């Protein structure tokens, strides 16, 4: 039992140290993305996560006793050897093992640049959120959004809510209609027209609040 564990640790930390490093980096990034409250810190976590993946790929491309994936002078398609034999020749199996795997490098090359572009996009979104709400802390932002939702509901006497589904809205409107019946003793026939009327202002109000989100502050 103890020896098995020792072999496991030996395999993990001596022969596969690259995987340990990438897993640790990946976990740091994952934890930052989940637990941190600040959007910028979340983005830093995302970058660390990305770096872990890049490290994983590049470390897989390593080959013992191999050189970088650029042809040595003796295999160079424009080298003296190629001229002597009248053009480059395909490499043999032994020669192939002397070059590192080019594929992970290619994949990560594009991933790095696209990662920078997406990071820039995410930072732009963060900046816009900060312009709109004055904070990039998740809990403060959520509190402000809740407040705004509540204040957009207040001006109307009836419970406007979010007007998500049709039957819900009509039932709410009916309820408000009955309330108004109790107060003003309006005729029953106006109920349905009231239901129709109340729907439109609700939508307008939510739209206005949406616009305010973008413009104000």
């Amino acid at each position, binding site marked *: 039992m103890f020896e098995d564990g020792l072999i496991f640790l030996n395999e993990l930390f001596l022969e596969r140290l690259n995987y340990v490093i990438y897993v640790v980096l990946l976990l740091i990034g994952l934890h930052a993305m989940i637990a941190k409250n600040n959007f910028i810190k979340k983005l830093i976590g995302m970058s660390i996560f990305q770096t872990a993946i890049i490290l994983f790929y590049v470390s897989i491309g390593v080959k013992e006793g191999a050189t970088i994936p650029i042809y040595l002078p003796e295999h160079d398609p424009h080298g003296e050897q190629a001229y002597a034999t009248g053009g480059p020749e395909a490499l043999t199996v032994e020669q192939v093992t002397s070059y590192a795997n080019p594929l992970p490098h290619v994949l990560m090359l594009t991933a790095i*640049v696209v990662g920078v*572009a997406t990071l820039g996009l995410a930072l732009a979104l963060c900046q816009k959120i900060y312009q709109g709400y004055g904070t990039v802390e998740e809990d403060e932002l959520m509190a402000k959004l809740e407040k705004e939702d509540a204040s957009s509901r207040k001006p109307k006497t009836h419970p406007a809510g979010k007007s998500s589904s049709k039957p819900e809205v009509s039932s709410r409107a009916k309820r408000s209609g009955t309330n108004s019946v109790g107060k003003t003793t309006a005729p029953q026939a106006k109920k349905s027209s009231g239901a129709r009327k109340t729907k439109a202002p609700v939508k307008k109000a939510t739209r206005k609040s949406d616009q305010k989100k973008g413009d104000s502050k």
Partner: protein
Amino acid sequence: MKNTSLIPVVLVGFLLFYASTDFPEWGDPQSPASSSPVSSHFIAKTGVDTEVPNMVTAVLADYRGFDTMLETVVVFIAGMAVLAILRNFSRKKPVKRGHEVSVEPDLIVTNTVRLVVPVIQIFSFYVLAHGHVSPGGGFQGGVLMGASFILIALSWDLERALTRFPINRCMVVAALGILLYAGIGVLSMALGGEFLDYAELEKVLPVSREMARYHAMLGVEIGVGFTVTAIMFALYANLSSRGRLEGGL
């Protein structure tokens, strides 16, 4: 709250550590990635197919040409999106904050940058054009070129960099890069091949089929370099000035 987030982290960590003992050892020549027919084919045949000594460039621009083209489009779209999110056309003067002070650009910094920027730009051309025979290529050269403009913006101010590379020209250059890339693909299609089948360009270039691929790759890399240069600078210019394109950091 913070402790509950540890649960998925620990779970994922346990699974990944548990799985990593099944992965190949460090530098194992017999690992699945190294012994796969795909990478063996790339290593063995790149010289014969394209006469490009740098396999990474050949795989990037030729064998995986579609992938690289659409990655470039992703970079372009990200730049456009940042512009759309942040662009602020209002003529109002931005409110000055407490920590902002207006100082003349430092003499030592600006003179150093004056010396360094041309070297960076020439080096970026070298990296871009020499990407076939040494480490380099369109992405790296483009990033270097964009960095030189960012350096100007950092040492003087954003206006100075924008007079050299206006944001409208940025977008034109970025679109031009993708157009160049796709144009080479369409041209090879018009000459009877498939999209991005560069070998067909031998009909318009005075070279062999292999060397046609070699030269088309250079054109494609230049297209990538254009797009990356412009988008890197556009990202910086927009992010540092909150879309106003003045003042900046």
